[in-house]
Each structure stands twice: as C-alpha cells, then as structure tokens.
C-alpha cells in the first residue's frame, strides 16, 4: 500500500504566458478512490491530460510504481496502465460491443478477424464489470448511457489498466446506474486499482471517495482524507472563501396562474397537466427517461403534441415551433448548452442576441446590441474581458450564464430551465441560483427540471414528479423530502 501507483510532483504547465498549472502534486495509492476537485478552469482536466499523455508538462515529474517515467503520448499512458473514461464516451455507436472493445487491437489470424475469439474474450471482459449478460454482438447505439460507460470501463480493464480516471462519470446516469457504477468502483478498489474521480457532485464524492485533492487556479491546495472532512471545508478549499449559503433564500411572491398545461401528450409523455404561477419556481423531478425534457420540448413547440393545450395568461397559445413559443413569451435553457444552447463559434454578443437580434428593418443595430449585451454581462456577472470572444472560450459556468442571458434579453414570461447547473462549479451554481430567484421575484414563471434532488427541493415552490411519462405527484416543496420525491419518481405510492 505504500508505493503510490502514480505520483505527480511539481507539475507546471503554461499555454503561452498563461499558467494553467503551477507546481501541482498528486498521488494515487493502490486501492484508493481519489477525488480531484476544483472549479471549472482550476486545471483538473489539464492535469489529467498530462497524466494520459495528451499534454506534456513544462516541469515536474511523474512516477509510476515509484519509478520515474515519461508519458509523452496516450500510448505511453496505456503502457503504464493508465486509462481515462471520458464524460463524452468514446465509442462508435454503429459498431457492436465486441468491435468497440477490440477497436485498434483486433484479434486476427493472418489478417482475418477472429470473431469467435473476440466474442469469447469480450464476454470475459464484460464479466469483470458485472455485465456478463450483455450480448457482445449488440450495437452500442442500442445501449443506455450507463451500459456504454460500463463497456468503456471493461475496455480499459481489458487493457490491463490499473489507474482509471473517471471524468464526471455519473453526469448522464440514472440513480440505479449510479449505484451499479459505485458498486463496481468499490470492487475495483478491493482489487487494488486506483481511481481518480473527477466530479462536481459533492454528495457522491463523500459517498465513494477515500481522499480529496483540490486545485484552485492552477495551484495545488491540498489533499485531505474524506472521513472527518466537512462539506464546507471542501468548498472553502475550492473557492478560497466560504459561500454564504449553498441555496440562496427567496421570499416567494406567487401571482396569478400564468401557464396552464392541460393533458400534454406526445412521444413518451402521457397526459401531463399542471399550472404554473407568475413568480413561482416549479421543480420537475424524475429519473432519467421519465419524460421531463420531452415535456419541456412539447411545451416549447419543439416536438409535436399528440394531445393537450397550453394556455398563457388565459390565452391559448399551444406553440407549434420554437419561434411561436418565443413570440408567446417562452424561454428555454436547454440541458446541453454546447449542443443546443450555444453557437460555439459565434461571439458572446452574437449568442446573446440570437433569439432576437436588435435590428431595424432587418438591419442589425450594433449599438443597441452592444448595449444590451453589456447590460446582461453586468447583470449576470459574466466574467469575460470581451464580448467579442467566442462562446467556446468561456468556462462552463459562464457559458451557462450566456445561455440565460440569451433568454433574459427577451424578458420571457415563462422560463423553462433544463438542468440549469449541470457541469457548473460550486461558485457558478450559487450565482445561477441567485439569478433564478431574482427572475422569480420579478414575476417570471419558472419551470425548473433538475436531477439534483437537493437543488429541486431547495429552489422550488412546488415540485412536479414524473415517472415513465406520467405526472405521479405534485408536492409542496416546503416540507417535501427526498424520500417522498424518490418514491413518486420510481412509481411508488
């Protein structure tokens, strides 16, 4: 247990004159789950890219099993048994499980694929992650995200990885899949593997990790054993100060009924009805696949309704396209800001004004646009030097604020938020909660979908719980418990 599997010491890395890592130490013991934490931009991913041979450090050394090694390419990392499980999984959807497991190292005889041998070995590899019942001939695209992740872990283990780096592994998993993953992680720990666990999810880290290392602005803040460690202390290490409160308090000023959704159906959603008042935050909870995002898409006119109608301030609107929804007064902050929320190549300014470009007779009014963007940057505390920077260059939290800014520019009457704080660091989350509260206080009706139960409970006035496309409960958030929400979300009574 004494010789670390991996020891990185004094790692420095700069991109041009910007120092991304300044003397970072990191050590991973055999049989350890080690959380790597820090706000977005703290240098976690750069550190892991150095460990996996994607970037070369400017200074500092890496030891594997106590011996100094040079990891210059991803192939070197593989040689030393270091594997990374990416947040965006690296599998080819149109190929089978076995094809993916052996991609690039196919078993062959005289250039002919030995499918039988691969299938047999695939089953062995899958058994190591408890997936022996999965057919290796199944196409990846037919698997759930959780299963795909298991396949990726199986591939890493099959390649004799002893160090597994997991980047936000539970971001797209259901509760059940998360539990399965944690069970596997514990088994791997028993087998003496080392696991680097990169995540923002505090509850998970306290549940599964043995030690926590924190980076802040490229500096190594420290490593602490989890037992006896307080949540507040970790936050303080990450942001350098104590946050006032994790969820800011809002005095609800609930107004008239603003949005009335009646018998909404379409796709996986069946007959969902609810009312949303001005100034109210209605949380939507449920497991992955419960139809929450689909419900939002139906209301926003993105997908076709098979039944139901939408009434806004007493007038039936039932949008048939996003542009109709926007004209009616809806805004929609989507779940996946990179794929759906932003045009990454466009500037911050152009992204903010995309739903409605300030213009006269089709001609862009640059002065008005600049002024509007400046105002929103200030109001939402978007940290950037320059509104002409591409959206791609902003941190996750700032990108999410740009998506919010986009809709605030339209002064929506109803704002739909789908996982508004996913992938956003602790400080950024608190700021987004503040913005949500401010909007509600200004009378905006907010429909907030979230998979983080503490967030739903703390931020909402009422909670709509969905299960398999149906609304199973409508709870008053004050007094509701995680258990009550989970019971409804799993279809229990």
């Amino acid at each position, binding site marked *: 247990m004494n010789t670390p599997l991996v020891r990185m010491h004094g790692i420095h890395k700069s*991109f*041009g*004159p*910007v120092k*991304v890592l300044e003397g970072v130490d990191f050590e991973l013991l055999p049989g350890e789950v080690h959380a790597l934490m820090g706000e977005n*931009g703290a240098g976690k991913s750069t550190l892991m890219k150095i460990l996996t041979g994607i970037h070369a450090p400017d200074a500092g050394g890496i030891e594997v099993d106590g011996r100094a090694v040079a990891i210059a390419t991803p192939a070197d990392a593989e040689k030393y048994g270091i594997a990374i499980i990416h947040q965006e999984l690296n599998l080819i959807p149109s190929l089978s499980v076995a094809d993916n497991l052996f991609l690039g190292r196919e078993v062959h005889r005289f250039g002919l694929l030995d499918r039988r041998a691969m299938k047999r070995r695939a089953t062995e590899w899958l058994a190591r992650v408890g997936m022996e019942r999965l057919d290796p001939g199944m196409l990846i695209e037919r698997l759930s995200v959780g299963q795909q992740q298991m396949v990726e872990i199986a591939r890493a283990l099959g390649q004799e990885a002893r160090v597994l780096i997991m980047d936000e592994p539970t971001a797209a998993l259901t509760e059940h899949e998360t539990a399965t993953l944690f069970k596997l992680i514990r088994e791997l720990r028993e087998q003496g593997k080392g696991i680097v666990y990169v995540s923002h999810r505090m509850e998970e880290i306290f549940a599964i990790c043995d030690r926590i290392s924190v980076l802040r602005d490229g500096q190594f803040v420290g490593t602490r054993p989890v037992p006896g460690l307080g949540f507040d202390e970790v936050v303080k290490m990450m942001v350098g100060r104590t946050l006032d409160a994790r969820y800011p308090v809002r005095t609800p000023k609930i107004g008239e009924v603003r949005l009335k959704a009646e018998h909404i159906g379409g796709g996986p959603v069946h007959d969902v009805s609810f009312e949303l008042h001005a100034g109210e935050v209605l949380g939507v909870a449920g497991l992955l696949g419960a139809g929450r995002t689909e419900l939002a898409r139906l209301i*926003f006119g*993105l997908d076709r309704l098979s039944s139901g109608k939408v009434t806004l301030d007493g007038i039936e609107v039932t949008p048939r*396209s*996003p*542009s109709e*929804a*926007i*004209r009616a007064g809806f805004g*929609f902050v*989507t779940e996946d800001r990179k*794929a*759906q*929320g*932003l*045009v*990454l*190549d*466009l500037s911050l300014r*152009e992204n903010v*004004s*995309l*739903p*409605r*470009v300030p*213009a006269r007779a*089709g*001609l*862009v009014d640059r002065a008005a646009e600049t002024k509007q963007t400046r105002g929103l940057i200030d109001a939402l505390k978007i940290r950037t*030097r320059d509104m002409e*920077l*591409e959206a*791609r*260059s902003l*941190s996750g939290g700032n990108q999410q604020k740009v998506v919010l800014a*986009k809709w605030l520019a339209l002064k929506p009457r109803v704002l739909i938020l789908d996982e508004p704080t996913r992938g956003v660091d602790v400080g950024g989350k608190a700021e987004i909660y503040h913005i949500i509260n401010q909007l509600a206080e200004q009378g905006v009706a907010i429909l907030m979908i979230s998979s983080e139960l503490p967030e739903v409970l703390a931020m909402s006035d009422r909670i709509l719980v969905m299960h398999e496309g149906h609304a199973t409960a409508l709870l008053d958030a004050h007094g509701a418990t995680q258990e009550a929400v989970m019971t409804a979300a799993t279809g229990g009574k």
Partner: protein
Amino acid sequence: MTLHFDRSRAITLLQRLGSVIGLVLLFVVLSIMSPDFLTTDNLLTVLRQVSINALIAFGMTFVILAGGIDLSVGAILALTGAVTAGLMAAGHGMLLSAGAGLALGLLLGIVNGALVSWGRVAPFIATLGTMTLLRGLTLSYTQGSPIPVTNSGFALIGGGYVAHLIPLPVIWMFAAFLVCGFLLRGTVFGRHVVAIGGNEEAARLSGVRISPMKLAIYGLSGLLSACAGIVLTSRLYSAQATAGAGYELDAIAAVVLGGTSLSGGRGWLFGTLVGALLIGFLNNGLNLLGVSSFYQQVVKGIVILIAVLLDRRQ
C-alpha cells in the same frame, strides 16, 4: 486558459489573412517573372474572367456558411442563360428575358432549399440530383446547340466597359460583393446564416426559422448563379447547354481558399473574393509563364489542398 483561446483566435486570423498573403505573394512573384503580368490590360482581363466564378462563389459562401453545399450552381447558370437567350430569340425584350432568367434561378435555388429543409435530403445529394436534372433540361431545351444572342443591348452586360476601361462584369462583381457582404455582416439574415452553420439545433431552439432560412439561402445561391449565367451568355453572345460545367467546384474552391470552413459557421465573404482572385491570377500566371494546361491543374489542386490542410489546423 484565456490566452490559449486568444491563440486560436490568432490562428483564425492568420488563416484568414493567409489567403490575402498568398494573393500578395502570387502578385509579387508573377510581376517579377512575367513582364506581361502587371499591365492594366492583363489585370482587367483577369478580373473579368474571375467575375463569373466570384458571383457564384458569393452565393456558395452563404450556403457553405450555413453548413450546406450547392453543386447545382453550374447547371443553374446554364439553364438560366439558355432560357434568357431563348426568350430573346423568341422576340421578347432584354429586360423581360433577363428578369425571367433571374426569377428562374431564384426559383431553382428555392427548390434546392425545399429539398434540403422540408425533404430532409443531404445538401450534397439534393443538389447533385438537381444538377443532373437541370443539365438534362438545358440540353433538351437547347437541343444541344448554342442559342445565339443578337440583342446588342444585352451584349453590353457582359461585354461592355465603363469609361472605356473597366469591364462591366467587374462592376457587377464588386457590386454583388458589397451587397452580399452587407447582407452577411449587417443584417439579421446574415447572422442567422452563420448561426445555422455553427449549430443548427441551437439556432432552432433560439427561434430561428430554419426552413424558410434555407429556402432563402439556396435561393440566393440560385439567383447569383443566374446572374453569372446572364453575364456569361452576354459575353459569349450565345447560351450553351454545357456552359458552367465544373463551375461548382471552382466556386467551392474559392470559398475554401478564402478561409471559410466547409463544416459551416466560420468564414467571411472577403475571403471568397480573395479566393476567386487567387484562382484567377494563378491560372493567368501559369498561362503567361507557358505552363502546360495539364500542370496548371496540378498546381491548382496543390493550392487547394494546402488551403484545406490549413483549415484543418483549427
């Protein structure tokens, strides 16, 4: 971190300026190597030759920026040219004939847009189909033989001069450049074109109406191809069914050389103008230097490959 991205911005700028630097270098080299190059006559001749490709390439820039491709431009050029010439041969006036040609180009472009948006056909396949179809229509309309133009007023469009010096097509080219440049940079339409190419889903969710936009984008490309068709027909005094064969590739080359990304969302119109000029002057220089036409193709191909490789550097 931040500078890392400034660096990518600098690379983008360099890539964009790359085509300009390339054009300047080519200019200097050709001026030194051939005494006939740097003469008013030669330069204006090249500009006139470039104008046809440039007109088409401006439309192509919008299509490519929006993440599409239009292979039917050369075929639209041929059909609109033939219809314009045919109407005049049937005794109609020049304005009506040219107007009909332009309207037809616009309409054919809109058909492309409809196939791509409503029909959900991949742009490459949709416009490959219309390209083949329109070629066939042109051949049957002209019965394979050129339609001569006798209207002397019409002949001025492509053959006339301003102040006995500057060919009219060059004026059309710069006028189209200014209008299209303004359309791209100064209007909501242009903003939405780039947004669609950058991330169609995000644009749709922001309320950009994708289908009408695509009709307009491909319509614009068709309209500009028709403009090129009219200029070419006018300059040649006749419309030929085979006119504009391969022009789609020259136009795409000009757009890509100019630094516009083939995957959409990144690019500029000025680059396309520079790209078209680069191709024109390269052809001209190689001619002046007496390089065989076989090798000319090789050189052109190499230049395009280098440009695409630079684009991949992002």
